[in-house]
């Protein structure tokens, strides 16, 4: 189901994000391009797997809860746990609800 994208990720922005990390120094010219492609594949995977959960729940709209459950299901998405932790589970108090908008 991997279609060719019409829209691309902005390479300059990717480089900017990479260099926001203080430890990161120089980056070869081609690197943002590779990261861009990897990101495309990653996002596609994330969307696909989250959508499966959306379908399974019989919903028409993909919600952040579906995304959270996706992250919790697959080990490869472990690095996203903190990001989704602010999403409240159904019927329970949300864990670690810091205000992240001031980052």
């Amino acid at each position: 189901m991997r279609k060719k994208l019409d829209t691309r990720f902005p390479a300059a922005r990717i480089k900017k994000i990479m260099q926001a990390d203080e430890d990161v120094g120089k980056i070869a010219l081609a690197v943002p391009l590779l990261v861009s492609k990897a990101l495309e594949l990653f996002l596609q995977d994330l969307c696909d797997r989250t959508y499966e959960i959306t379908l399974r729940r019989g919903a028409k709209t993909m919600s952040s809860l579906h995304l959270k459950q996706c992250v919790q299901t697959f080990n490869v998405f472990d690095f996203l746990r903190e990001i989704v932790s602010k999403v409240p589970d159904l019927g329970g108090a949300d864990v670690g609800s810091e205000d992240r908008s001031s980052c």
Partner: protein
Amino acid sequence: MEPMDIVGKSKEDASLPKATMTKIIKEMLPPDVRVARDAQDLLIECCVEFINLISSESNEVCSREEKRTIAPEHVLKALEVLGFGEYIEEVYAAYEQHKLETMDTIRGGKWTNGAEMTEEEALAEQQRMFAEGACQNERWGYCPQTIRTRPDFRELTLGLLVCWNLKLETLGKHP
């Protein structure tokens, strides 16, 4: 040092443009699927986090190899280490494609920068400058290193001594 604590100050304002991301997410999903607004924002955050993850790991790979610039190979290695090994093939294909596309550009322009002189020309120029200025200039060296490497250095030195002598004579300080 906390490992990968990217939540704090290093995250700045750098994020991915929302409009572009919305379009891309739409393209990735079946046409009639809707995505809640907060889910979209969350997906964008996940993307940024992914970039941070790859950057961080690539940087580690790079350091381990004692290099200073993160290279494509480091990124590929990082993908493998992080469990995204199945992406490597396509990512590498994209890289190869990019190389092909930029090869002509590089070959065309960069190496024909005609501003350099040949070594002979440079030495001749030096000699001219030297002959002109040696007797008037109290300091010897326009470029001591270059003088030392010149083939006719001995001859030149003798010439300089003569000049110097003449100068001293003129100043009335003949030893």
